[in-house]
């Protein structure tokens, strides 16, 4: 995509384990912040493009529109969870390009920090999980990825310290931001001593849980010129999936450790952007767990299968490495809003607003969203 659609405003509630505000209040705050950041009045908004499963159940489009006095001429939801959040700019860009909308808002909020059961209730309505997984106590995301990690150890070998180093690096980034949820220092020794959640994954291998919301505003480049901040262009989105249900995706795929379609999503995003991710100045990858982040590095093609651990250990994903990863600390340490905060951080980087974790002269970066079997990759640039 040419530089014709831009993110012109961002908003996020402060990263928090628990907030006294409910998800609608949090999301509203984020949207208002994003609009103020853009210098755009709500009355100018004519479209919503958001994630397609959690948002309708928590902060439906009609509610947000009514709260802000918005009449939508474009309305779209995409995929679910992370891929929906990260992929929604694709829908917004299509709408803006085709003239269906001029100013499109995307938002996402979650209250899993306060809600009993947190994110684990997310999978309860799935019949196959209820029948064939819950009775066995296989009903938490850490266990899903723990099975993967154990299998990865068998197929490729895995030094657990490599997972630990990823957690340590991202904690350092989080601490540097000065506003992340996790502020306590984490050393490799701390990681090794941390209790197991679902072996071989320890607490620091797992993302935090949060109450909070993020929002961003997109518009056409000519409108962007009159906004308050430098535009960050939506250059391309790649989306992929696999013919497997989200119930089956963690256990049944033949080649469990290669996420189908991820490489194709990268290719599609690069084609749309006319850019190569090899030139990316940073990557905000969906790090629900250390191991899922590691697998994405490989499946995206940044290294061979089995090699991501070494890549991390050699420092390539540090802020001063060749592929700075999760500059804000990611889902592991910054907050857990399913990569909505990754989009916000990417925009900050490209505006030069990232403060202590700023990648010097960041020109282009990308964000990923993962919720098996779906995957989205968003390329943004100055």
């Amino acid at each position, binding site marked *: 995509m040419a530089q014709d659609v831009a993110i012109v405003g961002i908003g996020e509630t402060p990263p928090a384990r628990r907030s006294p505000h409910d998800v609608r209040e949090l999301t509203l705050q984020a949207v208002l912040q994003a609009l103020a950041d853009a210098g755009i009045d709500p009355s100018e908004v004519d479209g919503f493009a958001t994630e397609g499963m959690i948002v309708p159940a928590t902060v439906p489009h009609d509610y947000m529109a009514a709260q802000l006095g918005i009449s939508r001429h474009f309305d779209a939801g995409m995929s679910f969870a992370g891929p929906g959040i990260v992929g929604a700019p694709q829908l917004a860009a299509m709408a803006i390009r085709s003239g269906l909308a001029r100013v499109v808002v995307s938002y996402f909020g979650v209250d899993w920090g306060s809600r009993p*059961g947190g994110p*684990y209730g997310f999978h309860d309505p799935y*019949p*196959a999980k*209820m*029948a*064939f*997984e*819950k*009775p*066995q*106590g*296989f*009903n*938490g995301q*850490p*266990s899903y990825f*723990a*099975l*993967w990690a*154990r*299998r990865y*150890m*068998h197929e490729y070998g895995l030094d657990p310290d490599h997972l630990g180093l990823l957690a340590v690096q991202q904690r350092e980034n989080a601490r540097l931001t000065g506003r992340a949820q996790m502020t306590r220092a984490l050393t490799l020794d701390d990681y090794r001593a941390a*209790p*197991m*959640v*679902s*072996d*071989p*994954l320890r607490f620091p291998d797992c993302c935090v849980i949060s109450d909070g919301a993020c929002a961003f505003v997109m518009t056409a480049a000519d409108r962007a010129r009159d906004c308050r901040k430098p535009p960050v262009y939506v250059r391309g989105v790649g989306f992929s999936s696999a*013919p497997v*249900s989200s*119930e*089956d995706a963690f*256990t*049944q795929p*033949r080649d469990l450790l290669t996420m189908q379609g991820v490489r194709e999503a990268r290719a599609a995003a690069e084609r749309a952007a006319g850019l190569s991710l090899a030139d990316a100045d940073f990557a905000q990858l969906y790090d629900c767990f250390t191991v899922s982040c590691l697998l994405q590095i490989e499946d995206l093609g940044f290294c061979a299968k089995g090699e991501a651990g070494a890549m991390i250990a050699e420092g390539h994903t540090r802020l001063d490495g060749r592929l700075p990863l999760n500059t804000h600390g990611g889902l592991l340490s910054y907050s857990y809003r399913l990569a909505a905060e990754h989009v916000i951080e990417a925009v900050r980087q490209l505006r030069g607003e990232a403060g202590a974790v700023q990648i010097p002269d960041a020109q282009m970066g990308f964000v990923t969203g993962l919720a098996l079997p779906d995957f989205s990759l968003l390329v943004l640039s100055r």
Partner: protein
Amino acid sequence: MTADDRTGAAHPPEFRGFFENLRLGSLSFPHCPDCGSFHWYPMKRCPHCRGGRWSYRTVAGPGTLYSWTSVHRAFSPDFTDAVPYVVALVEFPDAPGVRLVANIPYEEVDTLRVGMAVEPCIDRDAATPTFRFRPARDRAVGESPSSRRAEHDRGHGG
């Protein structure tokens, strides 16, 4: 509809045959006569060929440990007292394409190795029939004194 005693949730009809065969002492999985494939978890139609004639086919029982994890933190109140416990993924030589989630007694955790032979232990007489796996007593997969074939395959009745 088959009720699940533990959760109180009703299962879809295509799940029924699995539990009926479990009551008879066997593990079974959806098998399609049109394309010859198994699939799991049970779907309305065969996901490989969209055929509508699949039925539950019993397996001999013994399998291979594809992966496992030992859970140390409960994710729901039902399991607070159960931790630590082991969740395993088991494959079957006579049901390729199926990976079954199963428990293995925690006391076996230090013996577990990916690829090892495991065998089922079915409690068909419990109020809700249950199954667990354990490391196979003998090395050869395919021999299991505790496996039992059902008298006949069950349709999914869906």
